[in-house]
């Protein structure tokens, strides 16, 4: 479903070349829940951004559902991202001027979904994260945990096949973090594939599959659960 072969990413300034990723190989199957760990600066977020087509890679091959991402132009990448990928960020990244309903509506509008269908999906997603009654609230009127649940609702609204979460519990206390994690597990059980970057070892252990990024490469992995045949690494 998601396949990265020898992906590399290099940032270049006048003086320095930095390899954020090199020879990065990963194969993700449908329905997996993968926790990505690693020290700060190891390339976890870069991997996630490339997986989400938010930044280009320097070399290698990236196939998403069999589509060669490297050959797509910006509009095609935006379409693919909109249709297949949902994002959850550490900082929630809700748009402050929009209420919860409108925030969840954003990806649906870009997909060109009609108003009635948008309404159905938004209400369903807000219901799923337990915030249906707060639809008209602005993000700043909610707690951090609630905001993250809105972000999850927004990610789910587009019915993505992939959820990419970049430290989704990083700004939350442990109780809220657990609630968000339970929500993600539920979403995974409902069929979505989740890749979650986290620093939290306890949360990582709850994911069926762990991978570790060190110095821009997959260093090691531990398979806690699931199918032992799921290949990780080259």
């Amino acid at each position, binding site marked *: 479903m998601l396949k990265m072969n020898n992906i590399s990413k290099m940032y270049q300034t006048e003086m320095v070349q930095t390899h954020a990723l090199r020879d990065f190989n990963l194969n993700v199957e449908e329905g997996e829940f993968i926790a990505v760990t690693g020290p700060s600066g190891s390339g976890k*977020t870069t991997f996630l*951004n490339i997986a*989400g087509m*938010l*930044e280009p890679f320097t070399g290698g091959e990236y196939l998403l559902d069999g589509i060669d991402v490297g050959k797509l132009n*910006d*509009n095609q990448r*935006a*379409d693919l*991202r*909109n*249709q297949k990928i949902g*994002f959850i*960020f*550490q*900082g929630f*990244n809700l*748009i402050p*001027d*929009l209420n919860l309903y409108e925030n969840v509506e*954003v*990806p649906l*509008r*870009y*997909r*060109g979904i009609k108003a009635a269908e948008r309404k159905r999906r938004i209400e369903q997603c807000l219901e799923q994260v337990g915030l249906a009654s707060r639809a008209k609230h602005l993000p700043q009127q909610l707690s951090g945990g609630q905001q993250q649940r809105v972000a999850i609702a*927004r990610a789910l609204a*587009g019915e993505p096949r992939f959820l990419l979460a*970049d430290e989704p519990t990083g700004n939350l206390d442990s109780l809220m973090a657990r609630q968000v994690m339970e929500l993600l597990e539920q979403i995974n059980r409902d069929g979505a594939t989740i890749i979650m970057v986290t620093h939290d070892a306890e949360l990582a252990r709850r994911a069926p599959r762990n991978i570790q990024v060190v110095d821009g490469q997959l260093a090691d992995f531990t398979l806690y659960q699931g199918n032992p045949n799921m290949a990780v690494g080259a």
Partner: protein
Amino acid sequence: MFSHYIDLSWRSFKRTPLVSLLMVIAIGVGIGITMTSLSVYHMMSMDPIPEKSDKLFAVQLQSMDEGESWWSPDSMPYQLTYRDTENLLNADLPFKRAALMKTGFSVHLNSDKVKPFLEQTRVASRDAFDMFNLSFINGGVWSKEQESSAAPVAVISQSISKKLFGTSNSVGETFYLDDLSVRVVGVIEDWKLHIKYFDLNNGSFNKPEHIFIPFSLIKANEIDTWGNTNGWKHEPVKVFNDKLQSEKFWLQFWVELNNASEKRVFEAYLENYIAEEKKAGRFTREKAEYKLRDVNQWISYWEVVNEDNKIMVALSFMFLAVCLANILGLLLAKFLRRAPEVGVRRALGASKKQVFFQHIVEVGMLGLFGGVIGIIVAQVGLFGIRQSLSYYDALANMDISMLMTAPLIAISACIIAGLYPAWLVCNTTPATYLKTQ
């Protein structure tokens, strides 16, 4: 999506009301100044009688001797002599013709009812009313007999009629032009013109006259011009008849020719006329020279819209450009501050094109608001011009086409100013902002 973008733009204005207001005011002032000068220019250059401007021709005859020159672009005299005017007017031709002269009188009722006042008066042949589309409210033009017999009659405007008699229907009433008692035979609607194209000798933008008397009164009552009299050779003028017989230029002449063949017939007539006059010792030049210019050619020939007016419009557009440069700076700051939100939108599936379009709609809305403010500023500016000089009364106005143009210019200008900021913000790498927001 367009209505959604409008909604987002409105929210954006509310989010930064001060900066938005500053931009709207900047574009409003720029558009206001531009539209003020553009409106005046537009009125100056507008066709004053579009329905027949290509059918009315000013007649010029080269009656000066060989070697004599005039200050017109082609050295043709702007006006005609009385002899030529009278001859052309009385020629047996099937075309409407207007012989014109500007004069003026002390107008009074020979009573204490109305205070006497000086008023410019137009001496005109009877076809002039039809040729120049003057509308009668009451009565009509004087008869052919009255014209040929130099009857003391007049056609007056509605406003003069009200001023003298307190009514629009003053047909049959008499009033005085100096000592000449004249009877009103017709009342016309006030002649509203922004360019006094039929007589550009004494100011292109002066107001048309309100009193009209027959052309034959010039000779019968020795009515002299209040306009220009130009000579090109020494001619002693001791009595009025000397002026009538002289080669001095002091009258205007127009002819209505409805098609090319009519024009050819009239041109042939002029050539014959010049040839005949040549035999009588006039028109001594080897080649017969005459010109027929339609209304717009005539206006252009007179350079009614001169370089100064064009420079003024250019300067006002430069001022608009300065305003836009300031707006560009403000837009850059505003849009780039929003880069994190754009990053989120991009992550959620917005293409660069959609982000770009969203911002262009926003600057378009800025332009629309600025255009509305600009119209208000322009109205104030035009009011100021009208107050400063009554000469500009008819010119310093904004017609419907200018009213529609103002927001269009404002929107286009803002979109041009917003292209770079919008392009910049849609090209930001979304990933840069997602972690840091």
